[in-house]
């Protein structure tokens, strides 16, 4: 009996070691780093003087923090709403089978398959104010030129739009999978009771899809809050910090200004924000399921 228990525990060891090594260690290290004056010198000497909360005071007190926090919130909410709404529409659209729907559905995955650096470079090209394809086209129908990436008041919207484009395949795929699991009989029974079209969606599709929706949204937020490459590729956080988020600011502090302590402090704030969101959301969701 005892031996069996021992074996059971042994089977857990690989997973536990893996978690500790690849998740536990970096998080703990990042937390420790945020309380240290961790600079380039630390890498060579291994010495990082303890500075207490100084890094947090610095990043929270910085003028840029408010801007970055607001941009992060707008970027996340905007991206998620857009990705989810369009993704759901596509999923519903592909639910009905029609000729070539399989081909079209796989084409929809393209943005997901491209490396983010490539897509952001191509978008930067498309969105160029003077010679970009988009403004050339809009100019042809009498609009523009739109300062997509060059105006501080437009750049954030542009970056969100590009991020929506990138996120659509993910949302569509998961939601489409969820739709496949809803038994056809429910719709048949519903239609007998007069629930078709919007009513069928409201009373059958949506409630049945709910668990999948929560997964999509939680994963979406976690992916979006930390987005770095797209913003760096499109604007580098500019113009005039208009697209600076907590993630890009943290990258900047660590890898451009070599202030790894402050960078770690900022990224910990980001981790707390997304963890809070995940916990709150999962709780709400559990309640909803229990009801």
């Amino acid at each position, binding site marked *: 009996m005892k031996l069996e228990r021992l074996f059971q525990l042994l089977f857990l060891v690989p997973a536990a070691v893996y978690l500790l090594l690849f998740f536990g260690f970096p998080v703990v290290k990042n937390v420790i780093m945020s309380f240290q004056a961790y*600079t*380039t*010198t*630390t*890498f*060579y*000497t*291994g010495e990082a003087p303890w500075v207490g909360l100084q890094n947090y005071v*610095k990043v929270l*007190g*910085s*003028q*840029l923090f408010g801007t970055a926090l607001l941009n992060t919130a707008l970027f996340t909410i905007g991206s998620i709403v857009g990705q989810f709404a369009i993704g759901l529409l596509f999923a519903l659209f592909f639910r009905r089978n029609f000729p070539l729907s399989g081909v079209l559905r796989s084409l929809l995955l393209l943005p997901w398959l491209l490396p983010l650096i490539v897509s952001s470079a191509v978008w*930067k090209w498309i969105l*160029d*104010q*003077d*010679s970009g394809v988009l403004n050339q086209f809009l100019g042809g129908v009498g609009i523009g030129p739109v*300062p997509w*990436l*060059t*105006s*501080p008041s437009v750049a954030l919207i542009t970056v969100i739009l590009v991020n929506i484009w990138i996120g659509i395949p993910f949302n569509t795929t998961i939601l489409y999978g969820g739709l496949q699991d809803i038994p056809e009989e429910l719709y048949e029974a519903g239609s007998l009771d007069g629930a078709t079209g919007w009513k069928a969606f409201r009373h059958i599709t949506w409630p049945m899809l709910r668990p999948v929706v929560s997964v999509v949204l939680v994963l979406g937020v976690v992916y979006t809050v930390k987005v770095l490459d797209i913003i760096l590729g499109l*604007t*580098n*956080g*500019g*113009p*005039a*910090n*208009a697209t600076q988020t907590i993630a890009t600011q943290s990258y*900047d502090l660590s*890898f*451009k*200004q*070599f202030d790894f302590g402050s960078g770690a402090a900022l990224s910990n704030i980001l981790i707390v924000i997304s963890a809070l969101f995940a916990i709150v959301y999962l709780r709400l969701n559990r309640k909803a399921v229990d009801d």
Partner: protein
Amino acid sequence: MAATIPLVLAGCSGSGGSTSSGKVDSITVLDYYNQGNDKTVIGDYLDKCGAANDVKINRTLVPGSSLIQKVLQQASSKTLPDVLMLDNPDLQQIAATGALSPLTDYGISTDGYAKGVLDAGTYKDKVYGLAPTVNTIALFYNKDILDKAGITPPTTWDELKTDAKKLTKGSQYGFAVDANATYEGTWQFLPFMWSNGGDEKDINTPQTEEALSLWTDLVKDGSMSKSVVNWTQADVNDQFIAGKTAMMINGPWQIPGLKDSKVDYGIAQIPVQSASDTAVAPLGGEVWTVPNTGDKAKQKVAAKIVDCMNSEKNQLGMAKLRYTIPSKTAAAEQFGKDVPAEQVFVDLVASARARTGELGEDWPKAATKIYTAVQSSLTGQSSPADALKNAQSSN
């Protein structure tokens, strides 16, 4: 034009190489010249210097953007290469960690270099890195477009403004710079700021404000595209090649591409505010260093390689192949004679200023402030004065 003065050089014929330690047979090198012409030229010269010192060169290449991360990793795992190349503004940052050894410890002479070159390679009064060739930025102009408009390259800010305006028509802008939200944007602004007496210690000054007003006015009156806030130097060069801008600020590393493009271009100094001002250019280029690896014998040989890369003969050889300027004054003068098209860069480099010369390790913070201010002003978010004031007071 034939080279008339035969160069008498000690160069890399250092025959003392074999006496220091018979055991060193290979040297590791890390650099970021990972593409095209630069990759081959630097590789050839490293091999030459290796051969002259009876060692094999094991060279590792990384992309420019990941060099520092690689160096930091190697510093913490004590696996630094024997010879390390660094972009010059990063030298002080790395020297401050203690990972590099002073080149004077190996008896390497620092005579004959331009002041800016030594400033860039010096940390706390000791020289840690030497750049065989250096570069800076200047005004490139499209000869055909300027000739047609009857314009000679502008030398003052007023001329720049009027000429740029005249040269702007249809889809063609008069002038282009890189004003993006990176250190590249800062680097392009520096010659305007410095030539006008501005200083990175405090950018909230009338001198810097005037420089920023110049750029802002050029955007406002349409002579410069609003897109400059998002262009890299490569983008600016593409615009120039495509004939979408008549003049641009760029560096000699674009020359191979420009030659291929068949654009008939000329190079002139960057305009200064009044004709009596001296142009102050920022110094660019990579320095070679000898990290503290703990293996004294290898460090000695590594120093010989660095010394050899910096011999006048090799500086001149690499300069000609890479369109960059030798860092030793005598070699630079010779280079100007041999390649008259690049005389502008030779003149500028002689008095060029190192970005880290004044602030050292604090340069990245100041550089961030500068591009932030440039961006706020060019996008019309705030006036040049307010943009500089806000950026200076931010932390």
